């Protein structure tokens, strides 16, 4: 009999060749996990090539999923379970598996040729080299092929169902319901009934294999995670971001116009919005990034919500136009889904090294608000806030996400649109001067300027990139006016601090001496590491920034309250630099630039060491 063990959390990594469907498998397991009520977090990892040569390490595609009965923050550093569909997948991922970890390997692909291709002299599944692990070497391909034999598929197509077979097996192992995946397959392959049936059959066969054989002595249960009541769905960062933009535009009553040029890992923002034609979203695949942001700015000038989405190289190209938007003082949202740089860098890998570009990458004094999302689901709220600030303050806003957030997924309480704060474009509709004239650069008390939209009679005016006279917006080369305007534009952005909530410190002990401050996607690793540090009996405080410009009003005070401030970033210390300069506090950068999320266990260990050192002083 199989025993059932209850565990609080599990990390599974599915790994196989690019063609093995690992992303789909992982994604479905995530859905099945969501249905089981666990909290979860995912980390897809694809090769840079579309189809790297089969069977090579470079061609391995993997998907890691962390799920638990409590709220978790990261997809996990190291898997408990590795599903390896071929020797390359084993080779590429074994190093991450702790001793004692579970390996489920598809033996079908462990042929001498394939082993040789990745440099295995002998078969690790049989040569004893995996003695420290729990290895289940199963002919998943063969079993899947057998299971769908009756359906009349060709050999190749039949073998392709092995991923669903593996999924079925894992679903059984962790008590996941399979109904969701069945109905997913029914929809996906509606027009190819044979393929549909084969995949469903393989899924069920995998499940049944676990149930009926006694290959697995243990089966696991992970109880549902407590979560606030509500309706949840799974969401990836790019999808949530697209939804946030749509929600912002809808609440403002503006059309959403996305100008974009495809680039990894931002392309999905374009894809999601291009699929939202029912919601009136207009997308424009431009000839390049400059045209993309240009058209978005044109849409904003025309009185709609112009948005563009890109990654680092594209952001570099857009900067001149963003500078124009600063001068025009028009709403514009620029989403930068960061990837590892510089130059082409590692396009499929994550990084946070565009922060200084976002803050300072324009010529002249061209300040603008910068905000960052901290988790896949949080991309919604961050995008919504970006839209609101852009419209309220008539300013371009840079919204930072990254490759990890973009492709990662987590459970997401579906927001109630009605409950979101209202956004009012407050268009100028009539004269704003005592003499009946209209000055486009007259301002409200926030310093936001009047926004009159083409088609409004009597408010005709011209704007442009040459320095403008205060108030009238006419061309001006007056030295004093220029200085005034440079300062005024900065002041307007600084004024946004009024709507930036104070940074909140999480310090359960109330007596921590070390503060760990993060921004963006380091939220997960930092909060998870802090939990581990506290479990290890140390005191640590954490805080996280959504707003990188302007910074929260209380931040200086917060930083000064600690003996030591550590800033983990996936860059060489970009936020740290800003904080040091702004507050003259000796914050320390904790820099990890590996194209991967910061490792929570490494961070936790480092924090423990550091806290002990601090306490010893």
């Amino acid at each position, binding site marked *: 009999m199989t025993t059932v063990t209850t565990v609080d959390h599990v990390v599974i990594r599915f790994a196989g060749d690019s063609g093995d469907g690992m992303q789909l498998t992982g994604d479905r397991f995530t859905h099945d996990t969501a249905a089981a009520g666990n909290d979860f977090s995912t980390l897809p990892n694809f090769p840079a090539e579309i189809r790297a040569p089969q069977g090579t390490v470079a061609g391995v595609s993997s998907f890691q999923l962390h799920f638990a009965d409590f709220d978790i923050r990261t997809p996990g550093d190291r898997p408990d379970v590795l599903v390896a569909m071929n020797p390359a997948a084993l080779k590429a991922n074994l190093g991450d598996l702790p001793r004692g970890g579970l390996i489920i390997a598809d033996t079908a692909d462990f042929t001498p040729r394939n082993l040789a291709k990745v440099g295995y002299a002998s078969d690790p599944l049989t040569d004893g080299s995996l003695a420290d692990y729990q290895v289940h070497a199963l002919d998943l391909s063969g079993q899947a092929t057998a299971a769908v034999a009756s359906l009349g598929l060709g050999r190749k197509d039949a073998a392709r169902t092995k991923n669903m077979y593996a999924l079925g097996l894992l679903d059984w192992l962790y008590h996941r319901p399979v109904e969701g995946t069945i109905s997913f397959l029914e929809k996906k392959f509606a027009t190819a009934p044979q393929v549909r049936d084969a995949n469903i059959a393989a899924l069920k066969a995998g499940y049944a294999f676990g149930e009926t054989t006694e290959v697995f002595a243990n089966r696991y249960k992970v109880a549902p995670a407590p979560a606030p009541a509500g309706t949840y769905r799974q969401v990836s960062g790019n999808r949530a971001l697209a939804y946030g933009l749509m929600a912002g535009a809808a609440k403002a009553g503006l059309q959403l116009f996305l100008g974009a040029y495809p680039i990894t890992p931002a392309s999905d923002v374009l894809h999601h919005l291009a699929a939202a034609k029912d919601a009136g979203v207009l997308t424009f695949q431009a000839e390049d990034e400059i045209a993309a942001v240009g058209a978005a700015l044109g849409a904003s000038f025309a009185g709609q919500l112009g948005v563009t989405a890109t990654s680092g190289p594209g952001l570099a190209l857009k900067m001149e136009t963003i500078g124009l938007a600063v001068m025009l003082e028009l709403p514009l949202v620029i989403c930068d889904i960061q990837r590892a740089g510089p130059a082409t860098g590692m396009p499929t890998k994550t990084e946070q090294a565009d922060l200084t570009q976002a803050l300072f990458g324009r010529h002249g004094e061209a300040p603008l608000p910068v905000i960052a999302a901290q988790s896949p689901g949080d991309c919604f709220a961050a995008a919504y806030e970006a839209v609101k600030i852009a419209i309220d303050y008539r300013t371009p806003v840079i919204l930072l996400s990254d490759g990890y957030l973009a492709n990662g997924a987590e459970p997401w309480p579906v927001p109630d649109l009605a409950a979101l704060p209202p956004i009012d474009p407050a268009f100028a509709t009539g004269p704003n001067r005592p003499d009946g004239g209209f000055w486009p650069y007259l301002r409200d008390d926030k310093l936001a300027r009047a926004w009159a939209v083409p088609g409004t009679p009597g408010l005709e005016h*011209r704007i442009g990139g040459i320095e403008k006279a205060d108030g009238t917006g006419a061309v001006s080369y007056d030295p004093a006016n220029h200085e005034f305007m440079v300062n005024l534009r900065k002041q307007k952005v600084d004024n946004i601090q009024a709507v930036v909530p104070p940074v909140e410190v999480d310090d359960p002990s109330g007596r921590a001496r070390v503060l760990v401050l993060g921004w963006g996607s380091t939220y997960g690793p930092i909060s998870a590491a802090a939990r581990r540090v506290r479990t290890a009996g140390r005191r640590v405080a954490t805080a996280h920034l959504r707003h990188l410009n302007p910074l929260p009003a209380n931040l200086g005070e917060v930083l000064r309250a600690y003996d030591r401030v550590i800033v983990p970033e996936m860059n060489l210390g970009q936020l740290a630099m800003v904080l040091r300069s702004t507050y003259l506090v000796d914050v320390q950068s904790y820099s990890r630039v590996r194209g991967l999320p910061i490792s929570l266990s490494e961070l936790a260990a480092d924090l423990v060491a550091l806290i002990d050192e601090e306490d010893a002083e």
Partner: protein
Amino acid sequence: MTATTPAGTGLAGVPLSVTPLSRKDFTSDQEVRWCPGCGDYAVLATFQGLMPTLGIRRENTVIVSGIGCSSRFPYYVDSYGMHSIHGRAPAIATGVAMTRPDLAVWVVTGDGDALSIGGNHLIHALRRNVNITIMLFNNRIYGLTKGQYSPTSEQGKVTKSTPAGSVDRPFNPLSLALGAEATFVARTVDSHRAHLTEVLTAAISHRGASIVEIYQNCPIFNDGAFDALKGADGGLIPLRHGEPITFGPDGSRGVVRGPDGTLRIADVAEVGLGNVLVHDAHADDPGTAFALSRLTDTEALHTSPIGILRDVERPTYDDLARAQLTVHEDPEERLAGLQAMITGGDTWTV
């Protein structure tokens, strides 16, 4: 509902003015700051004269320009306008046109702005057939930056940046436009007010991307670049749809097609008027328009066709893109639809 011009035309969807407008309505309070004698003045005056004749509301006119002397144009027209950055006006105008079918969208650009830094946006706007009208002020020089050669300057041009003479062959802007699938391609001259009016009116009336090259004299840095054309020997070849293409004193010269398909200029008396090419601006195939564009010298200008080389109907990018959308006029309905979309089909409840 407000009145608009007929469907299918360039201004369809743009509301008509209820009161007649005059040139003064299109004159802004800004002091015009071109050099004395600059060809831009004539174009501006013509533009301000023709706008009221279109019948559309002034407030529904948008002019987007790049950077260059000519790109100061929007400041002088009392409509909505944007003086943007170098080369990007067609891209910006694309965003305006896509989101606002009720606007008449003009682009003002120069030979450097449109063909040097902005070449890519120009060819893509033409290819997509976005409903915008592009006025390309071609003075064959960079005016604003004080006289470097441009992609339309003749080879051998001596300028500050080419003291030994430029070595590259210029673009023929209309050949380039035709190669880029443009649906409306025309040329006119700063000083020919009636012709300018006619061509610009046709251009804005064309639904889709229209490009109008305007020969514009820059008395400061490239004075007289078009003098040989304007001279009495009649180097300008006026094109009129359905009419034989003749020019020169008493229409004594004409364009004929050779057996190898190329066009050349002949004495009408010699070849007979019946053999002169009859202009067909609406030919679906751009081949003849292309051949006509080649009658322009690339070096010092002696002959050049003016008028509408090509004017064909094709659905516009912006009309087609908008047609794919469902736009919810009712905000409540819109929010409800969006709520359903973001909720999706695969939820669970805690």
